[in-house]
């Protein structure tokens, strides 16, 4: 612990000295520019500048985590409700349904937000559907494989524009359907 303290003390002193010299300020300025240019270019619309600079900044953005996009409810918030159910057919023929958890509005939603995000990916991307369906099957049918079929069902409800009196239109889609082998 004393070694860590001494190292930390030396780094602090070294940091202060670097900040005071022109060379140090030049090096820090270069670091600042790299971070800022990466952040700004990452957020540019598709353009010649972005295409030109991306090969250089993409590795930096991914490696140190400064790659970023701020499309929260943008360019548009979703204009339809999406309900995802996982229907597992058990060996005795009974169907068990699992739905995305919705936490309480004070603390629970910080936990439920992760499930909400997962649901978005399940709806929009293929690769996560199979592991997700298999995980729910294990949860409902147990680890010894008491299920014969699993389906991910998406129910959508188009939201009418504000001011409109039109009724919401609904639709059901099967996102994933797998007949499971008997153990």
């Amino acid at each position, binding site marked *: 612990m004393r070694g*860590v*303290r001494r190292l*930390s*003390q030396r*780094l*602090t*002193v070294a940091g*202060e000295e670097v*900040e005071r010299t022109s060379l140090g*300020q030049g090096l*820090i300025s270069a*670091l*600042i520019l790299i*971070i*800022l240019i990466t*952040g*700004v270019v990452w*957020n540019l619309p598709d353009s010649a500048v972005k295409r030109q600079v991306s090969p250089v900044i993409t*590795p930096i953005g*991914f*490696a*140190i*985590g*400064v790659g*970023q*996009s*701020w499309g*929260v*409810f*943008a*360019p*548009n*918030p*979703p*204009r339809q*409700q*999406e309900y995802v159910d996982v229907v597992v057919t058990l060996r005795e023929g009974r169907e068990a349904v699992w739905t995305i958890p*919705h936490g309480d509005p004070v*603390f629970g939603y*910080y*936990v*439920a*937000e*992760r*499930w*909400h*995000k*997962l649901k978005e990916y399940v709806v929009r991307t293929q*690769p*996560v559907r199979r*592991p*997700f369906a298999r*995980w729910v099957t*294990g949860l409902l049918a147990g680890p010894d494989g008491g299920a014969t079929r699993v389906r991910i069902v998406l129910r959508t409800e188009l*939201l*009418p*524009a*504000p*001011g*409109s009196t039109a009724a919401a239109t609904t639709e059901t889609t099967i996102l994933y359907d797998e007949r499971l082998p008997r153990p």
Partner: protein
Amino acid sequence: MARTHASDSGGLLAAAVDRWSGFWFQPQPMTPLGLVRICYGLVMVAWTSALLPDLLAFFGTTGIQPEQESAPYAWGPLQIWHSDQAMTLTWAVLLLSSAALAVGWHSRLAALVVFVCLNSFIRRDIYVFNAGDGLLRIECLFLLLSPAGAALSLDSRRRRGSFWAAQVRAPWALRLFQVQMSIVYLATVREKLSGQTWNEGTAVSYALRLYDVVNITLPQWVVMNPLLMNAATWAALAVEIALGVLVWHRRLRPWVLGAGVVLHLSILVTLAVGFFSWSMFVLYVAFVSPEAAQRLVDRVRRRLDRRAEDRPGAGTATVGSATAEPVTAEPATRAELVEAPDAVTPTG
């Protein structure tokens, strides 16, 4: 003529270099950085705690994502070490290092550990994290680069004898937080203006009717009222533009940040967007001036001192709890030291 032109551009360049240097390197007390670190550490303690109930469901060997998907530059210990024990241990280390960061105990090291663990989780299962989580990662990188323990920290107490002490340092890392805030708001406004609903003024209505995002269901006459929803949508855009641009105007800053706080509190109450609003508030704290931060610290300190004096048995100390602290545990660095006006007076 040519010489005048050259000397003009030379003068402009020198002025630009001066302004750059003044903005990033003009020393100032690190009290705001101390506040940023404390807030960030507390948010990370909550973030890590919220991960626990579903830790193994998301990341475990029998979970939804048993192994990390391969992606370029996506380094992280959990990529190669992905047992359930590794997951639980990484979670525990993240919780402890976040708490260490909040109190400023070996702050730089704590920031490094938080950065590695946070990155590991985000990369381990990309399907469960949102923009707020990405922002927390960026903020951690800035803390890692900064003298995070230079104020309001156990590091300060160990080095200078007082938790409340603040070094005077170049604020470049603090400025990164500030510029990051402008990038977030300007980027989101640009993105929103490329869509239809923000331009039409209906976006807020749609967002408030999403059953799995809504915390409080507002009445239909509110969310379906075109005029109200126009006003709410365009007001949100206006506040975001102001936060991206006008926050740099010293006199407008408190008003702009106040409007931002109202915006994000409204989001917190009505919509479930995880830790996004909290991670934005961390950026807001970076805009607190050193003077305002010091006034806040003094107020907290006075309150703590008064509480310590009121405690039965207290009476040996002259200025409350802080008097028990050793004055100098280790040689101070060369940086200037700023102490609160009612500085520590040891009574022996």
